[in-house]
């Protein structure tokens, strides 16, 4: 369980996280979604008290992270920036972290096996590929059998097989009753993994709802209807959960009814329909629409020569 209340972080005169309040519940995978630079990593550092907030507060399992006697048993974290000494072997890296909590070598071996690094465990971490580095970071996060697992962009650098593995791992951890909090800038990835979504842009929360609800809202059951009798059709379709917008020239946009429902209603009342088109906004589009205002650096703002890239 992670509880944030009015969490705010300023770096100089730049506000990275702006009055963020949310609760991450155990037993489900919560996706933390936002464009790059929207404050996801900063929020995670604030949760771990690596950075201190300018205002607001955040607790993990009821306490400030720092006040837990065995922090690695409370939160296992993978941060976006690499947090491994490049000169040390994967095995010794994990061992040094384990020893702070009196966790033995057997556990270290176990985790190296779990993430599939046994062949390279004695190699220096500086020689690791991005994917191997992610696996090492995940092993470090799971070392203490933590009640809360917090991973910043965990699928970065993983191959398709690794992504599949990660998805199942996260779902398994949540099924065991753990709190799982995973950040990503990829809506498609989150829609497959997360049960609940917290969406942020420019440090502010813009959505906090179940993934199902988010998808429903995103595509919004929008149907375009063209009819010479649009004016008469409009009151017929309107209802408490339905919104109908007349666009003129016989065009209606109906939200809250399926194309079939509209067609049936029109037929029953002998209305003529010229067009009946369900408008499917993809998840990516929905996410882009939702966060467009909040993307830090828009391509249009770049100088022309930079935008060419």
């Amino acid at each position: 369980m992670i509880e944030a209340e009015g969490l705010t972080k300023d770096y100089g005169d730049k506000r990275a996280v702006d009055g963020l309040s949310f609760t991450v519940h155990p037993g489900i995978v919560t996706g933390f979604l936002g464009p790059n630079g929207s404050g996801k990593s900063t929020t995670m550092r604030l949760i771990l008290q690596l950075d201190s907030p300018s205002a607001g507060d955040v607790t993990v399992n009821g306490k400030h992270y720092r006040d837990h006697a065995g922090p690695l048993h409370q939160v296992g974290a993978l941060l976006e920036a690499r947090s491994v000494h490049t000169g040390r072997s994967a095995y010794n890296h994990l061992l040094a972290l384990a020893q702070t909590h009196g966790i033995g070598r057997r556990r270290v071996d176990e985790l190296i096996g779990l993430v599939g690094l046994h062949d390279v465990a004695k190699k220096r971490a500086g020689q690791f590929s991005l994917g191997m580095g992610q696996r090492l970071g995940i092993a470090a996060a799971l070392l203490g059998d933590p009640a809360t697992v917090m991973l910043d962009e965990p699928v970065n650098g993983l191959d398709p097989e690794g992504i599949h593995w990660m998805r199942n791992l996260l779902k398994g951890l949540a099924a065991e009753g753990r709190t799982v909090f995973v950040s990503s800038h990829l809506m498609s990835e989150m829609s497959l993994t997360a049960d609940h979504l917290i969406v942020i842009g420019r440090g502010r929360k813009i959505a906090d709802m179940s993934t199902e609800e988010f998808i429903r809202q995103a595509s919004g059951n929008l149907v375009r209807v063209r009819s010479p009798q649009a004016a008469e059709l409009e009151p017929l379709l309107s209802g408490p959960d339905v919104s109908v917008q007349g666009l003129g020239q016989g065009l209606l946009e109906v939200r809250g009814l399926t194309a079939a429902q509209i067609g049936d209603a029109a037929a029953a009342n002998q209305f003529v329909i010229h067009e009946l088109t369900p408008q499917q906004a993809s998840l990516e589009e929905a996410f882009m629409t939702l966060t467009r205002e909040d993307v830090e650096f828009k391509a249009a703002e770049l100088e022309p020569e930079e935008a060419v890239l």
Partner: protein
Amino acid sequence: MNSVASAQQLPRLAHTGRVTWPRVAHSEWTKLRSLRSTRWSLFVAVLLTIAFPALFAAITSSHWGSMNAHERANRRPLEIALAGVNVSQLAIAVLGVLVITGEYSTGMIRASFTAVPKRLPVLWAKTVVFAIVAFLLMLPSVVIAFFASQAILSGHHILQISFSHPGVARSVIGGAVYLMLVGIFALGIGAIVRNTAGAIATFAGIFFVIPPLMNILPTSWNNAISQYLPSEAGRQIFSLTPGSHSLAPWPGGLLFAGYCALVLALAAVLLIRRDT
């Protein structure tokens, strides 16, 4: 990596522990011994501590015949025996800096502070573990340097000095104590500056740049101030006879230890207050 897809269940941990002081120290020992840079720096420090006195002793011995009386009178056997301390202090200082800045440059510090979010135990454990390792390696090195240089100079009766001669044992052991304190001082600087190049430059400025600059000052000022500089105060621990404008060995050593405590205290305050 083919076997990973099948193993998704995280094995449970039989019992949970808490962060304790000895555990953090154990972790820091693992960190220190598992880096190549540590082994190299310590190897170089041992080598320099022993090799330089042996080299100087051999040169002194072979040139003895061509030296005039004045020159011969200026040869001090204990200075030869501990000449390596002046050189190896750089290796120890660099390692002291790296112990902490290496974590900042690689991002390891975030992992360290996630495991030990109270942070200060990490600083204290690093300091204690590094100090013990440095002392345990430097003590035999200076003792070997003393007896080796004395053996090489055995043909020159005037350059023989007994280990039991007043002040000799204190100076030789003091050489190891001085190197240990240099390591602690450098570690503290590293924790304050957090950047390898910057920390080494700061250390070099305090130890190697400021002292000769004092010669620009009027002599009376120089004589009054220089003895209180960290490097000048510290070196009295391994000087047999203090100069006329130097502190005595014990006050000098204690002052240097005080500087180390001051640097560490500042490092501790900053460690708690700064973002990582």
